[in-house]
């Protein structure tokens, strides 16, 4: 299986009274809470962590896009990926991804991803999320009722632009360009692997199957909550006559490793409470712009009375309620333990959910350099070896980058001190 190191790049210094005094981590987060000196430290520290993960042998390093968000400091993940391309050699660069409906014209994404693929020698994985309501509709002002239509057109345009052997005119519903001609071109032919981060909608699963893309379920709520979604995904693949190749699926899991479970609980309690107690304090007003969810998905979601009741309770909840650390552990949001315990649990997760592309959040909440490094190193040296060979004897990973051979690769110079 593939083990990928995923960074959200959270701001680590949200105050203790954040929920009571500020109350919103996304869209209208208090600008006064951002200290640019800390921002300077964090960006450099976080890039170091990603580089170290690559050196320690993780198969891929992942960055993603969020806007006006206190737990995601990457409005432009492409900037981070560009920095990483120069300082890593073998790891896949997973940009997970660019919300393509936000860019006018979307060929900007085709260009930047082509640049990254060239710069990295063909190591790019191109993620195309629709984007959350908070990022797209509220922060970027995109119309929820036209977002998906724009997304699909942007995808078609980008993929065509990467492959066209001559300039072409695009007279679309949302984009008109008389001369589309992406220059530079990606190294990987016909284009870099495309992964689709998504929620649990049937339409997304069907689309991934039709396009033969990886479906990545990026939830912060762990394998227990993810089980039903991944079961739905695989049921749909079977219905569509697709094989059960686990590399069709990506999954995100928070993990904290230590020498013992007791030590892990001691070390990761604070960061987990910080993430689930502060970083997920999203105002529900920004969660469901009308038109963002298709009517088919809406119908499927509200069809059970139980789901309806839960949704109502959710909508009417006035105060944000942080889960306790015990709940975080018992519900499997975060897996903690000794290397053997974590390996055992992740083996179960990967097998049960049938996931070949496992993305790991080994920095979460307010974890700083030392703890993140400890977690990453323990995982790389004592967990990865126990998982690495899973699936490889049975399935081919057709959704992985095909970089240039070693001798064709440029060598960036070191940094002058």
């Amino acid at each position, binding site marked *: 299986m593939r083990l990928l190191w995923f960074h959200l790049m959270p701001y680590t210094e949200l105050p203790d009274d954040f929920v009571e005094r500020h109350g919103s981590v996304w869209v209208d987060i208090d600008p006064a809470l951002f200290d640019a000196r800390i921002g300077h430290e964090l960006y450099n520290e976080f890039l170091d962590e990603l580089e170290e993960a690559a050196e320690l042998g993780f198969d891929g390093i992942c960055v993603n896009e969020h806007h006006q968000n206190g737990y995601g400091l990457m409005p432009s993940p492409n900037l981070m990926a560009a920095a990483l391309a120069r300082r890593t050699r073998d790891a896949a660069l997973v940009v997970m991804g660019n919300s393509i409906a936000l860019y006018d014209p979307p060929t900007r994404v085709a260009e930047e991803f082509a640049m990254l693929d060239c710069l990295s020698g063909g190591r790019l994985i191109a993620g195309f999320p629709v984007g959350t309501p908070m990022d797209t*509709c*509220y922060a970027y*002002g995109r*119309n*929820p*009722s*036209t977002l998906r*239509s724009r997304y699909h057109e942007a995808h078609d345009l980008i993929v065509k632009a990467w492959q066209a052997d001559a300039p072409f005119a695009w007279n679309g*519903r*949302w984009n008109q360009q008389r001369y589309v001609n992406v220059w530079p071109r990606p190294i990987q032919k016909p284009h870099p692997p495309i992964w689709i981060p998504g929620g649990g909608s049937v339409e997304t699963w069907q689309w991934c199957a039709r396009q033969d893309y990886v479906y990545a379920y990026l939830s912060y709520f762990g394998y227990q909550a993810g089980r039903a979604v991944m079961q739905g995904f695989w049921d749909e693949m079977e219905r569509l006559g697709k094989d059960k190749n686990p590399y069709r699926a990506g999954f995100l899991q928070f993990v904290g490793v230590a020498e013992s479970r007791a030590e892990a609980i001691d070390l990761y309690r604070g960061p987990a409470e910080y993430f689930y107690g502060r970083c997920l304090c999203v105002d*529900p*007003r*920004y969660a469901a*712009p*009308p*038109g963002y969810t298709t*009517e088919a998905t*809406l*119908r499927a979601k*509200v*069809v059970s009375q139980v789901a*309806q009741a839960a949704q*109502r309770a959710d*909508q*009417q909840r006035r105060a944000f309620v942080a889960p306790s650390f015990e709940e975080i552990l018992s519900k499997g949001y975060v897996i903690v333990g000794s290397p053997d315990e974590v390996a055992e649990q992740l083996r179960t997760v990967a097998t049960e959910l049938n996931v070949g592309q496992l993305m790991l959040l080994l920095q979460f909440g307010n974890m700083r350099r030392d703890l993140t490094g400890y977690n990453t190193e323990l995982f790389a040296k004592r967990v990865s070896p126990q998982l690495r060979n899973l699936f490889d004897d049975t399935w081919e990973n057709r959704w992985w980058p095909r970089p240039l051979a070693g001798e064709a690769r440029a060598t960036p110079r070191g940094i002058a001190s």
Partner: protein
Amino acid sequence: MAAPAGRGGPCDAAGHRVVTTPRERTARVNGEPCRVWEAGQGEPIGFLAGLFGLTRWTPFLERLSRTRRVVVPSLPGFPGGRGHEQLDDLPDWVAATLDLLEAADLRGADLVGASVGGTLAAEAAAFSPGIARRLVLVAPFGLFDEAEPVADVWAQRADELPALLAGHPERVLEQLAPAPGADPIECHIESVRAMAAAARLLWPTCDRGLNKRLHRIRIPTLLVWGSADRVVPPSYARRFAERLGGPCSVRLLEGAGHRVDLDAPEALVDAILGG
């Protein structure tokens, strides 16, 4: 399709009697069905409804239909109307509105538009001067002043929206409740669709450039606002009045919120008929 009036009982939450069952027919706009309700005798008057549209005949329409032949076409995406997902930009919406008004035989009639319906009534009148003889705009969207912004109706908690829209939130809830025998899931989806249609036209600030076209409206126009409108502040009446190109008057209805038609049905009818 929503149940005709009367089926849910003879009174609404406020005790207004609603006994009329409107005649119903279907107009086609871009090939999609749009419901047209009609009741009463006399000079025709059209009504384009606001946020959430109309799921039932209301006391406001009941009272207006005692004096006039009231024609109520449903805009695409609002209850009874389909096809909003074909409408990508303002010209698409204006053309659809003109098609709908013409299919409802309302060209040249008096036209009342409330909230989102008021925006489209104004746009229709600006683009096609003969579409209406006289205009009544009830708390229309369409302008945006940063110093006194229009509320973001698409960023509200579900349980707080009714009180934002009306001084009598129970009347909003009554409009949104499933009719007897109706599927509650489809009813919920219908209300989400109506909000999505409004968003499709007006997201994110409700300003689609109407301020550059209001001067083209030269027919007599009455602006009606609820004094307690928490969505489009009553001061917007002045902003509209300053820009309109023809004779206009302003009526402020004391205590009413954004859904003037639900909060103050009698006073709204009196304003329309007396203006």
